[in-house]
C-alpha cells in the first residue's frame, strides 16, 4: 500500500469525497450556462414521464363572459378589489390584473362548488377557532354575502350600489366589513366575508396567470419574482440581488413548445 497508514474512510470522509466528485463532474460539462453561468445538470434514464397522464393544472377558461358571477356581482367585486389593490405606477389594479376573472372562474369551478369542503351536518354557529361553519359552498357564500352587503349599502347610502359610491365611502365600508361593524342580514357576517374575500383577492393577484388573474404576470414583475422556473437553486445564496431572467408562468414560453 502507499506510504500512509492503512485505514478505512469513515462516513463523513466518504460524503466529503462524494461532494468533490460531483464538483469535478460538473466541471466537465461546463460550457452550458445556467442562470448564473453554472453548468446545467442533466438527469436522464430515471423515471418515465407519461405525456397526457400527468397531474397537470387545469387552466381557467379563456375568453370573455362570466361563468358564475352576475352583472351586479361583477360590479361590486370590480369596485371592491380595486379599492384593495388600486392602480398605481408600480403595477396594475386588481381588476386590471384579472382578479375578477380569477374569482369568477374559481367560483364556477371545483373550488367554488365546494369540492374540498365538508358541507354536511351537524351545524352550529361555532367558535372562531372552529373556522368556516357556513352551509354554503364558496360560490353560494359569495352570492349571499354580496347581496347582503349591497342591501346594507343601499340602506345607508340612499339606495346606491357599492360601485357607484365615491372611493372614500367605499373604503369606509370595506373597513367596516373588515372589522365586522357592517351589520348584514342573514347568516354571513361581514367580517367572515371580508376575510374570505381578501384571501381570494390575494390569490388572484399573485397566483399563476394560468388561473385568470395576475394577467401577463404583472404582479410578479412588480415584485421582481420571475415565476415558475424549474430551478432556482443557483440563486439560493445570491441574497438581495435581482434575478434578471424572463418572467414565466406554468404555461411556459412559446419557445418551449413543440412545433
Amino acid at each position, binding site marked *: 500500500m502507499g506510504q500512509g497508514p492503512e485505514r478505512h474512510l469513515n462516513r463523513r470522509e466518504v460524503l466529503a469525497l462524494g461532494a468533490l466528485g460531483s464538483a469535478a463532474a460538473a466541471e466537465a460539462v461546463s460550457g452550458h450556462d445556467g442562470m448564473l453561468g453554472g453548468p446545467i445538470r442533466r438527469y436522464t434514464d430515471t423515471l*418515465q414521464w407519461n405525456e397526457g397522464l400527468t397531474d397537470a393544472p387545469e387552466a381557467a377558461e379563456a375568453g370573455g363572459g362570466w361563468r358564475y358571477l352576475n352583472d351586479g356581482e361583477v360590479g361590486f367585486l370590480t369596485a371592491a378589489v380595486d379599492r384593495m389593490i388600486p392602480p398605481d405606477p408600480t403595477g396594475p389594479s386588481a381588476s386590471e390584473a384579472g382578479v375578477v376573472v380569477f374569482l369568477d372562474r374559481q367560483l364556477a369551478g371545483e373550488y367554488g362548488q365546494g369540492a*374540498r369542503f365538508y358541507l354536511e351536518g351537524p351545524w*352550529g354557529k361555532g367558535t372562531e377557532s372552529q373556522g368556516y361553519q357556513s352551509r354554503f359552498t364558496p360560490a353560494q357564500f359569495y352570492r349571499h354575502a354580496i347581496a347582503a352587503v349591497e342591501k346594507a349599502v343601499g340602506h345607508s347610502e340612499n339606495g346606491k350600489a357599492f360601485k357607484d359610491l365615491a372611493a372614500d365611502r367605499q373604503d369606509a365600508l370595506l373597513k367596516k366589513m373588515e372589522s365586522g361593524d357592517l351589520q348584514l342580514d342573514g347568516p354571513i357576517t361581514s367580517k367572515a366575508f371580508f376575510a374570505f374575500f381578501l384571501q381570494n383577492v390575494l390569490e388572484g393577484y399573485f397566483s399563476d396567470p394560468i388561473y385568470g388573474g395576475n394577467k401577463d404576470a404583472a404582479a410578479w414583475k412588480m415584485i421582481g419574482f420571475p415565476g415558475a422556473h424549474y430551478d432556482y437553486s443557483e440563486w439560493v445564496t445570491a441574497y438581495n440581488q435581482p434575478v434578471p431572467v424572463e418572467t414565466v408562468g406554468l404555461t411556459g414560453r412559446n419557445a418551449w413548445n413543440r412545433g
Partner: protein
Amino acid sequence: MAKAMPKVDVVLVGFGWTGAILAQQLCDAGLTVLALERAASRTTPDNWATTFDQDELRYMWRHHLFQNVKYSTLTFRNNVNQTALPMRHLGSFLPGTGVGGAGIHWNAQIWRWLETDFKLKSHNEARYGKQATADLTLQDMPVTYQELEP
C-alpha cells in the same frame, strides 16, 4: 360475505415511507408481507413535474395533494364546554393522501438525538428517582447513542 385471503405473516396498513422501509426489512427477514394502500400510486414526473409543481395556489391553498375532507372529516372542540363541530376545510394541519402522501409534504428539522434521548427511562429515574417517572410510559431504546454514532 367476507372473502378469506391467504394468511401472511405481516400486514402493513399504508405503504408510504414507513411502510416501505418496514416491508423491506421484514421481507429481508424472510417474512411474508402484505401492504394495504388505499390510494393511487404517484411518481415524481407525473405528479409533481418541474413544469407545474411550483403552483402555490393548487398545492398550498387548494390542498390538491391532501386528504379531501368532503368525504371524511373530523369534529373538534377546544374544551368540554363547547360543542364539537366538523372541520369543514383543512387549515391547522394537513393530512396527506396517496402513496407516500404524508412524506411528499413532510418537512421538519431532525436534530441529532442526545445520548440521554436513547435512555429516557433509566436517565430520568437516575436523576429524579423512580417516583418521578412512575406515571410515565417511558422506555429505554434497545440501542445506544454510541452504537449509532457515525
